[in-house]
């Protein structure tokens, strides 16, 4: 997994912790020539960069969103924006509505009787609760992986090919190529390439979880919803998943629910803190974990309750 990160460093130019605008040009020029994006960054403070991201490059917007299970209001007036190709960590005490919130984005809650929502969620500017929207399309675009890996009782290959097949893809070569690419993308190809026809249940927990991620990736989603994807895994499998998330954000926008604060701090760019169905604080992850704006967030991240 270390390898994955190193590779990503090679592709992008390594980030520096030093604000590039503080480095004199003479020294700056000795380094690699800056990409245009870096040059832009140089001109604006981190704060401006963040604002720019937030206004120009939004994948998801949530506006005045309320959600009810029968009489019980599980989400209260949520407003948030998600920047394309970033990872948003969702944290908060059990029962605060994290999973409910996540399930809204692919309308998985629709299967539950007696639910109701108000307000808007837009993905790429499209209102996801629109009557004319095809929910199957939405779920193709917004993939989901759960805490407990749930491979189908089929072979490894069939698990990944499944989504394509139900979507009517017939071309065998195309299916095989997509399966391979998805397994590679989920960083599990090397471990399974020699036993693609074996049952998925023969894999370890961590491998099953990455297989489920591969399955989600095979239908080429744009958004990935991960609900405590590593909470049942051992530390090594966990760090593989974390490295994978770091890799995947180049191509996907990711929302991840996690109970592990350190994990949220490590993998996410932005962190949303929920409590009792309310979004109390949403900010850049380093801000939340070094200097949250609200005392209640501070109390939660420092383990004073929860």
């Amino acid at each position, binding site marked *: 997994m270390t390898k994955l990160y190193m590779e990503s460093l090679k592709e992008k130019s390594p980030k520096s912790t030093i604000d590039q605008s503080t480095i004199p040009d003479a020294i700056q020029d000795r380094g690699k020539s800056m990409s245009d994006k870096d040059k832009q960054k140089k001109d604006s403070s981190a704060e401006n960069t963040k604002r720019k991201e937030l206004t120009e490059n939004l994948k998801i917007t949530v506006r005045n969103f309320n959600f009810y299970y029968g009489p019980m209001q599980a989400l209260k007036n949520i407003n948030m924006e998600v920047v394309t190709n970033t990872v948003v960590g969702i944290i908060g005490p059990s029962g605060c509505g994290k999973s409910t919130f996540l399930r809204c984005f692919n309308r998985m809650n629709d299967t539950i009787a007696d639910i109701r929502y108000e307000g808007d969620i837009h993905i790429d500017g499209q209102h996801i609760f629109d009557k004319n929207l095809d929910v199957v399309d939405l779920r193709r675009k917004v993939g989901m992986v759960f805490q407990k890996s749930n491979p189908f009782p089929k072979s490894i290959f069939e698990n990944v090919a499944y989504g394509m097949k139900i979507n009517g893809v017939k071309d065998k070569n195309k299916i095989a190529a997509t399966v391979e690419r998805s397994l590679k993308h989920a960083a599990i190809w090397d471990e399974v390439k020699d036993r693609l026809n074996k049952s998925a249940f023969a894999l370890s927990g961590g491998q099953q979880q990455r297989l489920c991620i591969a399955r989600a990736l095979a239908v080429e989603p744009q958004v990935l919803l991960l609900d405590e994807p590593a909470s049942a895994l051992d530390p090594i499998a966990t760090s593989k998943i974390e490295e994978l998330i770091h890799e995947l954000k180049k191509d996907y926008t990711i929302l991840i629910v996690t109970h592990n604060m350190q994990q949220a701090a490590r993998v996410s760019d932005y962190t949303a803190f929920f409590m009792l169905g309310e979004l109390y604080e949403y900010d850049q992850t380093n801000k939340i974990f070094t200097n949250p*704006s609200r005392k209640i967030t*501070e109390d939660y991240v420092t383990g004073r309750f929860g």
Partner: protein
Amino acid sequence: MERHLDEEMEIVKNDLLKMGIMVEEAIQNSIEALKKQDARLASKVISDDERIDEMDNQIEEKIIDLLALFQPFAGDLRFLTTAMHINSELERIADLTVNISQRVLELSEQPMLKPLIDIPKLAARAKHMVRESIDSFIKHDEKQALDVILSDKESNQLRTMVIQELIYDYMVKDASTVTRAVPLLLLTRDLERICDHATAIAEDVIYMVQAKMVKHHRADLKKPKSQKAE
């Protein structure tokens, strides 16, 4: 809720308080030694420094352990990183008292150049600034820390005055004073550097309380911000 980490941080706080007292004592002793030309006291400052070095190592190890074991966030993280800085600032202040004491040893063989007035004044300032900066850390008092930072200007002025006097009233006029003036000049600079370290501690305290970097940004210093929103 009282957390295990709170207990551990209290220990760090107490250790730094103790170290602060030892460092103050070292400043006091080195300057007493100067005033009384007491070589034995100066030697004691030099040998006592070992204990401060030892303490520096222990506190640093303790903080690294806490960072690794508790992986603290937010206010806890700022407290521990600040404590780590303060620890090394204190250790450096102690090193400067060793420098001063070495100058005192050089001077103890010769008659005093002049009656000392401003140097003890600068020493008293240095000691006071160290005390106030540590106190502001213990009490999380950003106002007190700010006062320390703002008072550093006066110690710079005092230092400049003393040094100019040594150069123009003594060394320039009478070259035979050089061997007695130079050690005074050097130890004056060391005293002023102690004030700088106290200032650095105060800057760290402001970071800890307000999460705002003020070092190298003196112009941004403002009055303390209000409490976090509930």
